[in-house]
């Protein structure tokens, strides 16, 4: 792992914490414990993202899913996951999670050598399953608050903290930094194909969320926040409020 990106990353941690700390949360505008003061702008971005999905992303995903057989698509997904492992290890280390760093380093070594460069996943068969992380989680571990809800162009639902995390992950990704063009676009290509594959495989679920709900913006926000908090190990959410005590 490149030491330089690690140093850059560590300095970003400080900046990220500062930025996240600046995000003010206004309880007046929160629904289900989500702060969303820029809801109007977010809704415009949501409408834009839906347009992109309808005219571009979903049709291309359909083409990809129909032309490329499932086993090949799965291999591409595994490869995309594989290329994110150096970034995961970097974040594990920044979180002072040595066990996680060893886990992901082991996955990377085994899947590179035995898994033919990451197209197969023998590590999971050995009981070492995928445990991804990101810089947003690193910021969370060091106490950065969630901030406000944000719907990003193309990337979709996020928060102030996770947007900072996403930018840092994109800019300092060890695979991108270590490789020269054109190899450095390998990761981006695998990433996009993986997203297309997911769009195809979960077509019914995503369509129902985006095009059949009464308010797809509110659904996406609620689902993203609940799932994200779960991933970060926050388990004391509204779901555990006793509904039998509601008046």
């Amino acid at each position: 792992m490149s030491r330089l990106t690690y140093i850059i990353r560590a300095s970003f941690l400080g900046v990220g914490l500062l930025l996240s700390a600046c995000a003010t949360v206004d309880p007046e505008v929160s629904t289900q414990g989500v702060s969303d003061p820029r809801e109007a702008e977010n809704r415009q971005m949501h409408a834009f993202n839906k347009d992109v999905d309808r005219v571009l992303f979903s049709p291309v995903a359909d083409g990809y899913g129909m032309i490329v057989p499932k086993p090949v698509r799965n291999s591409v997904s595994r490869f995309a996951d594989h290329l994110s492992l150096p970034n995961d290890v970097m974040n594990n280390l920044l979180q002072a999670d040595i066990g996680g760093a060893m886990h992901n380093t082991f996955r990377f070594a085994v899947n590179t050598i035995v898994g033919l460069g990451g197209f197969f996943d023998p590590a999971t068969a050995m009981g070492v399953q995928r445990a991804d992380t990101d810089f947003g989680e690193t910021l969370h571990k060091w106490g950065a608050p969630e901030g406000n809800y944000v719907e990003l162009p193309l990337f979709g639902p996020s928060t102030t903290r996770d947007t900072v995390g996403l930018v840092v992950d994109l800019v300092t990704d060890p695979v991108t930094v270590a490789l020269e063009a054109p190899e450095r676009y390998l990761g981006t290509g695998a990433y996009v194909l993986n997203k297309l594959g997911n769009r195809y495989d979960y077509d019914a679920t995503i369509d129902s969320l985006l095009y059949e709900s009464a308010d797809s913006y509110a659904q996406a926000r609620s689902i993203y926040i609940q799932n994200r908090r779960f991933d970060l190990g926050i388990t004391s959410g509204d779901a555990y409020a006793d509904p039998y005590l509601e008046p």
Partner: protein
Amino acid sequence: MQSETTRRMFLGGVAASGLVALTPARALALSDAQATQLVDRVVADINKVIASGGSLSQMISQFERIFARYADVPIIARSALGVDARRASSGQLRAYTSAFQGYIARKYGKRFEEFVGGEITVQGTRQVKSFHEVRASVKLRGQSPFQVNFLVSDKSGKPRFFDMIIEGISLRLSEKEEIGAMLDRRKGNIDQLVADLKSAG
């Protein structure tokens, strides 16, 4: 399989008697074992539906039966309606609850296709406040397993689940958001909501 079930029941029994001995003064009727037992039955029924591989409409009606039998539908429906439940008449609430049940069955029953060939296993139970959380793991073909938790209470008089939380996403909270949005669109008209719910999902 048979011996495994027996063993689990035996362990459940031991756990239950232990719990009773430890908490003699608590009025809490529901034990971890009972909560687990309920989810075991839900899971067994769901696994049966998945294995049968029936048509979509068969799966939907089978899912509705499971939902009506093991879930506390009135409390889920009421909670999804939120504060508006307070101004609804008892007739409106009854009609709404029944429409809600069909809506949930159609909306989530459709998803059962994706579960064909998959398997759900119950992993453990913990007590949260006055209810129990039963953790289960879902393994679908060619995917890494994901977590589904059932929240179980007996405040309705019988052990029933009142929420299903998939990777942190609560069915009850997501539906609260959705039903709230539907009601807003109908300017708070509950009768209109009930009428539209009958064909939604």
